[in-house]
């Protein structure tokens, strides 16, 4: 993004807040605080990109993935990097899929409903106004009416369906499932971005996961971050925060970060840690901070994100169009479920390298069978889910003995499905297989996959059992706030980023309120 003319703050000027990380959790905070007149500096580990230079290529897109090594273990080891972790000004939203369902009301109170999982310390009614603000601001395209929430209105009409969406619509029709155009944070029309550049309409290129070149996709660098800049925020790319200095009372007084090999120290009145659900707990564990609850790193969650693929007689060319343009929420509470919670179903198109990785890695093909499958790329279409993962004490982020270039210990993530995820997964797999059979797919295969990084610094009402309060403030360090996917107490069936942004605005406003109240 264009950082020209940005306001600069001196290192020894105690700014009101330093925001660490400029992704879905950090950017809205930065914008909201700046809009309120606060002096704010964002430290972003990754580089600043000009989206026009993204190249529509899966290998060249490596630049937007977080490549600092993480160790993945447990019974269902999750892939990181291109699978779920971004870097750069804009964070993971540079390559996110921009699929933005709102969570179901019941998911926020799962424990009350089922005795499983846990309740969020905030209900849907309180969040809806934030969702509406975010959706209006970043420009969400979606169906009208939205079958599962008739009152909901999306600001923009849906983006065109692609081949896999057409097939899923057909299959759902045959099996009596409701499906409709997905809510996508992609502008289907030219969009006058508040506080930022005019955004052109989506050109259906299909490269959302490799970086959108024209700003049609709502990444933070074309939405909240330009707004933040306009209100005087400063963004420092290539700046890795690795230390927090505190005074005698325990309050944070400065953030230490490394830029171009040199350490700097930014004085500040408060810190928002928004480095994502792996880097945030990793930093806190490395520094031994904010962990009186012992909860930092615990309840790591990835969504159950199994996909089913099949080959169709018609050429699909699934690389074209917004990749996940159809949704069904009918399985948020399946009638015949033997598990708590539920899942969303979406149509899938992926670029060839992503597909090939799955075929070779998870489907396990090699030799002539691998060639045959890849050669059929233009005829493939997929369907996938995003399913509830219950918090589980075993699923945990700890520190490995190996260190990175900064001397910080690497993250070691242990993740595995429990019975609830296994049952949900079996249910979803059977449903998707059936849909793809109904649609006439041949050579159907299942790709087990875990998506997203959530949990590890859960929010809650009590400092005994949670790292932050319901607004994201640390129970231990009063001027340390966390705003990113790490605060999720449970995963919810919905994809996370919309909720991360909504919570970010809510945190920022709680912070402002406290500042006002002294």
């Amino acid at each position, binding site marked *: 993004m*264009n950082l020209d003319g940005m306001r600069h703050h001196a290192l020894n000027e105690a700014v009101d807040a330093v925001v660490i990380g400029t992704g879905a959790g950090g950017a809205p905070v930065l914008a909201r605080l700046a809009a309120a007149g606060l002096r704010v500096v964002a430290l972003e580990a990754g580089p600043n990109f*000009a*989206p*026009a*230079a993204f*190249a*529509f*290529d*899966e*290998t060249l897109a*490596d630049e937007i*993935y977080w*490549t*600092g*090594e*993480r*160790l*993945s*273990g447990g019974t269902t*080891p999750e892939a990181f*990097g*291109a699978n779920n*972790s971004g870097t750069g000004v804009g964070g993971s939203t540079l390559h996110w899929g921009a699929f933005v369902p709102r969570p179901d009301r019941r998911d926020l109170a799962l424990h009350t409903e089922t005795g499983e999982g846990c309740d969020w310390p905030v209900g849907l009614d309180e969040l809806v106004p934030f969702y509406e603000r975010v959706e209006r601001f970043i420009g969400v395209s979606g169906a009208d009416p939205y079958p599962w929430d008739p009152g909901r209105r999306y600001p923009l009409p849906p983006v065109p*369906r*692609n*081949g896999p969406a*057409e097939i899923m619509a057909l299959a759902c029709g045959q099996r009596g499932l409701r499906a409709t155009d997905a809510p996508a944070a992609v502008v289907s029309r030219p969009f006058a971005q508040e506080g930022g550049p005019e*955004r*052109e309409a989506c*050109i*259906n*290129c299909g*490269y959302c996961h490799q970086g959108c070149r*024209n*700003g049609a996709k709502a990444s933070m660098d*074309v939405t909240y971050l*330009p707004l933040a800049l306009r209100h005087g925020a400063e963004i420092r790319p290539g700046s890795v925060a690795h230390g927090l200095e505190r005074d005698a009372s325990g309050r944070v007084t400065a953030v230490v970060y490394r830029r171009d090999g040199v350490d700097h120290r930014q004085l500040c009145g408060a810190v928002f840690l928004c480095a994502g659900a792996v880097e945030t707990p990793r930093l806190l564990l490395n520094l031994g901070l904010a962990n009186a609850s012992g909860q930092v790193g615990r309840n790591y969650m990835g969504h159950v994100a199994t996909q089913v693929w099949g080959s*169709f007689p*018609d*050429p699909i*060319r699934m*690389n*074209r169009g917004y990749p996940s343009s159809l949704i069904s929420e009918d399985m948020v509470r399946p009638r015949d479920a033997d598990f708590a919670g539920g899942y969303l179903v979406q149509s899938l198109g992926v670029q*060839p*390298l992503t597909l*090939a*990785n799955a*075929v*070779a*890695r998870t489907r*396990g093909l*090699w*030799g*002539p069978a*691998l*060639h045959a499958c*890849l*050669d059929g*790329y*233009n005829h493939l279409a997929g369907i996938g889910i995003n399913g509830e993962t219950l918090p589980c004490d075993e699923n945990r982020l700890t520190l490995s003995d190996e260190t990175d270039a900064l001397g910080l210990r690497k993250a070691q993530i242990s993740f595995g499905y429990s019975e609830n995820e296994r049952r949900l997964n079996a249910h979803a797999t059977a449903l998707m297989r059936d849909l793809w059979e109904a649609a006439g797919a041949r050579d159907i295969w299942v790709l087990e996959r875990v998506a997203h990084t959530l949990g590890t610094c859960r929010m809650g009402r009590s400092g005994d059992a949670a790292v932050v309060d319901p607004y994201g403030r640390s129970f231990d360090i009063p001027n340390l706030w966390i705003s990113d996917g790490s605060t999720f107490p449970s995963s919810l069936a919905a994809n996370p980023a919309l909720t991360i942004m909504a919570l970010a605005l809510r945190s920022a406003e709680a912070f402002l309120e406290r500042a006002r109240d002294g």
Partner: protein
Amino acid sequence: MPRSDNSPDLLVALHFLGGSARTWEPVARRLAGTVGCLALDLPGFGAAAGTTGYDVAAMADHVAAAIRAARPRRFALAGHSMGAKVALALARRSEDGDPDLAGLSHLVLVAGSPPSPEPIAEERRRAMLAWIGADAETRAREARAFIRQNVGAPLAPGDEDAATADVLRAAPDAWRAWLESGANEDWAARIGVLRTPALILAGGDDADLGPAGQAALTAPHLAHARTRVLDGAGHLLPLERPDAVAAEIAAHLAAAAPADPAPARIPADYAALIASERVNPRLRAALVERAEPDDPAYAPAALDPVALALLRAVVARVLPEAGFDIAARLDARLASGAGDGWRFSRLPPDAHAYRAGLRSLDAAARAEGAPFLARDGAGRDALLRAAQEGRLAVPETADPRLDAEQMVLWFEDLRADAVRTYLAHPATLARLGFSGIGAGGTGTPDPDGLARNLPGFVRTGRNDPEPWEPEPWEPEPWEPGQSAPAEAVR
């Protein structure tokens, strides 16, 4: 035999442990009309029995001095067994620019000792060390037995007598030096991958340095190697099969120089798409770079040459029709340290995991009777299937080693890394009929860093292609060419 421009005017020939310049006489006679032969005595052997300097480097110096004195315009270097290791060391020096060795045009490795420590049973080594210093009678008996142990069929009595006499003529210190250290010197890293066209001759009945040993230990160091197996022959090929050895050498010296690596085959339509306005310049430049042919003598940076050969062999089973050297590109990526942001916590860091995985695969193959590189496609597939299914029996002695469970994860990583490289190549995208590269073009970049007016796709539905979208391309079967792994030709 017609002479090509590449043909040398001298064949410098080096003998085996216990041999001498005389070992090459039968072959030299048969090559007389083709190329002159300068057979040398290595320090401690033959007429040079009084000369010292027995390690590989010293022997190479000795030979280099003789070559300097002979001043050939172009020369070939043949080494038999121990002499082959010296020849490999000299070839490295030649390729590194040693002016005395500048004319080296061909290598001939006859039952050659490999660059790495030579596999030899400890018991045999000890016995050979024991009798060389014994009384005359024992020496005479054992020297003859040594010659007999090393042939596939008995030599003519006169030849056997001469060979036995050569053994007895050798300085016992030179003999010991080879067995105790020369054969154990590890030149694998120094020799790396040689560009000089090479002929590997192997005796079908040779033990450690037979066809399997050559495929596993020596061929990986040679970018352009042809392997010929002389069925029924043992280790002393120049004495046992002078006709065949001479004929093979003559053919090798007359063969055309290895061709430059062929450019990637991309169909004209797809090449036109890449060149068109629809493809953005950054992507176009990347595609052109990825289409560059691979250097057949690529020097591995993260792996050693043997591990690279193993990786090529594995990749050739994973993506048999790839058509370019994925393994070399994987090695370069491993060496660059560029990771993908994670690894299985059960595995060591990537480069280490590759070394250990390849070593373990080969160790398991050897435990089942033959090195991985000496197996045919079906044999390689069987081992890889065992690795994938978690039932590969990796000997405890493999070092570095992955256990069966780790092999499952490593082979998964390898497949993912291989397809990643495969899918980046424009020939692959052409084969798929992939239209995504044409979604963009340059557009007009604006001050905010956004691209305006990109064409994108107008049609997104199934069965509704845009007129310019490419159709899949069926390449002809790939002929393993320059960048293919060196395969034994029988």
